[in-house]
């Protein structure tokens, strides 16, 4: 009889425990190596670019380093003025030494052909500064001391404490000022955070509008998806598969095609208005403006996101056993009570999954609002695109994108927690 106190071993004498552990480690490694190429690819083409964008939202060297476009050579700029900022605490009245440093730096800028880009950097935070920089740099070489008076002769605005505050902020390449700007905040002359003038507050308003419209669209999707998901789930499979085409075809059709269709349907000379006029419901002069405004965004986005609500609802409703509702009815519940207390609670997981998904997708929507949104149907994504392509304030675009991304990631985490990404289904 074998000695039962001796550890179990494999055929070649290794302890069983160690052999099992190494086999499992091998299996884990093999699984991981299958995933590794893709993980590396996604990290390179997706995570790294976004990380770089986040870095850009807090880092703008426009006032500290000049990069030559041709050679790519980097030169530190505004050296004297930055040294003055370092020696003097915030709120110090700029003295003759400060103006002298500024003029010296402007002379260097002119040699580097950089006044425009430096002025642009300041212009992001204080409108009208770019022309002051280009103008002053053109004359800087001929300026005589006392520099303060000479500069003020060029432009009174050089004494503006706000300008000096902005230059102080920009004198460090790392700054949170773009996040402040993205939240309609700014630093005043002594460096404390205040909200900007009411007529310049656009971003918070747009974030709020994005949230409200997304909530409305999610709710409309729920309202439209619930009845048809229920119908699909209770019909025999033969019929429901056929009807499912109505849900899946839009899902597979190009986004631009669906957006174009809505333009065709809803524009003032479009199919819907023409039908209303032809049937006499509307006068020819009182055609409804349904596109290129908020209404257009809401209608088109509800249509585009509806399948994302129907599919999770359907997959939750299909397995619900009809005998529960029948039992409730046989115990005397009215059909409304049976629905409210028996059927509806069982569909709540599907509602949660669909609503979260639709909301996440709606918050970041860009194409449809850009094409059919007009002026008041734009969402926050459109503003990011505006700063990327038109105003070229890339750091502000990155800061806005970072705030949006933060919100999305919280919702994504919540979705993974509540629903699980594994349960994401596509048709």
């Amino acid at each position: 009889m074998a000695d039962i106190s001796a550890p179990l071993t494999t055929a070649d004498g290794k302890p069983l425990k160690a052999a099992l552990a190494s086999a499992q480690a091998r299996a884990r490694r093999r699984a991981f190596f299958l995933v590794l190429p893709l993980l590396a690819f996604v990290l390179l083409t997706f995570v790294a670019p976004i990380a770089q964008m986040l870095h850009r939202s807090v880092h703008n060297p426009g006032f500290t380093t000049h990069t030559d476009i041709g050679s790519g050579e980097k030169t530190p700029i505004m050296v004297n003025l930055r040294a003055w900022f370092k020696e003097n605490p915030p709120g110090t009245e700029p003295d003759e030494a400060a103006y002298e440093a500024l003029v010296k730096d402007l002379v260097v800028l002119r040699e580097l052909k950089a006044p425009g880009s430096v002025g642009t950097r300041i212009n992001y935070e204080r409108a009208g500064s770019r022309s002051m920089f280009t103008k002053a740099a053109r004359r800087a070489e001929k300026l005589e001391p006392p520099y303060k008076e000479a500069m003020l002769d060029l432009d009174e605005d050089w004494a503006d404490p706000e300008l000096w505050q902005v230059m102080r902020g920009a004198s460090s390449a790392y700054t949170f000022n773009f996040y402040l700007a993205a939240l309609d905040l700014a630093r005043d002359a002594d460096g404390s955070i205040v909200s900007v003038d009411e007529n310049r507050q656009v971003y918070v308003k747009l974030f709020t509008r994005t949230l409200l419209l997304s909530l409305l669209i999610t709710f409309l999707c729920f309202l439209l998806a619930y009845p048809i998901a229920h119908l699909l789930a209770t019909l025999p499979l033969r019929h429901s598969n056929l009807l499912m085409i109505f849900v899946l075809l839009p899902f597979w059709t190009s986004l631009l095609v669906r957006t174009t269709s809505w333009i065709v349907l809803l524009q003032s000379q479009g199919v819907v208005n023409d039908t209303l006029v032809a049937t006499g419901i509307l006068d020819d002069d009182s055609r409804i403006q349904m596109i290129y405004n908020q209404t257009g965004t809401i209608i088109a986005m509800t249509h585009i996101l509806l399948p994302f609500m129907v599919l999770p609802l359907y997959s939750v409703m299909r397995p619900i056993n009809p005998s529960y509702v029948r039992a409730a009815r046989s115990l005397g519940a009215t059909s409304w009570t049976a629905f409210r207390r028996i059927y509806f609670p069982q569909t709540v997981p599907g509602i949660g999954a669909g609503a979260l998904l639709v909301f996440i997708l709606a918050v970041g929507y860009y194409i449809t609002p850009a094409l059919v949104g007009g002026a008041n149907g734009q969402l926050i994504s459109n503003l990011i695109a505006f700063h990327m392509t038109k105003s070229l304030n890339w750091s502000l675009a990155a800061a806005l994108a970072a705030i949006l991304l933060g919100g999305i990631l919280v919702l994504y985490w919540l979705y993974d927690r509540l629903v699980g990404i594994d349960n994401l289904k596509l048709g």
Partner: protein
Amino acid sequence: MALPNHASTLERIWHYTYLVICGLIFLFLIAPILVVIPLSFNAEPYFTFTEKMLALDPTGYSTRWYDLLLTFGMDNPDAPRDGSWWADAWANAAWINAAKNSVIIGFFSTILATFLGTLAALGLSRPEMPFRRAIMAILISPMIVPIIITATGLFFFYSMTGLANSYVGIIMAHATLGIPFVIITVTATLVGFDHSLTRAAASLGANPTTTFFKITMPLILPGVISGALFAFVTSFDEVVVVLFVAAHDQQTIPRQMWNGIREQISPAILSVATILVLISIALLTTVELLRRRSERLRGVSPQ
């Protein structure tokens, strides 16, 4: 859901109202997609049904907008339509060039996404995969993160690494956007995959490569093809990344449509839209057939 015999009048009324409501919602879903098809044959440059069209008068219909797709951008569109005319169209027509670009980009990004995605899905569906949840979350995130954020990030990244204005850059970006779809469809096929089949193959002497190609691959192939089709559609329909990182002459079909809608929308857009709708009907049919085949193969019968 037939109405039981004992239903009250009120329930009957509600039942039929409910069916009408559902019908209207289905109409809302499908009408916008179907309406572009007849309108693309409009003889007039309008976006609405003319009286001739409503009267089904053949003169109200024409294929002039489809013709414009061929001739727009050609050197000599009015020449007789012989071999050299078609060569001109193939080389110069704006929409044909856009289609060529779209197909090239879509093809390579699909190959890349499908290959990497299938490999990763095989790893992810193994029970011993470490950090499964976190890695899955990262790999699915390109679908969740707003496209404008992805495009912004890629714009900075590509202009730094020199990938901007290149096909490689766009293909890599589109592959990234298609990967979540491949992962989702392939892992869905691998759920309920009977691992004793691979063990049986191994016990009969097959090495892992043979097992994979003879046993695993045929079983997951429907999922892989559906995933590939999803990835292709994603690339074929993607416009924002192209707008941000592609060169001006790298036109694709969605970019051309985007420009058309923004600048001056003409019924030519509707004829492109019609062609795209027909493509999506074909793709949907394929995916549906694949799904049924997959269910049959795996013995998952629809209840």
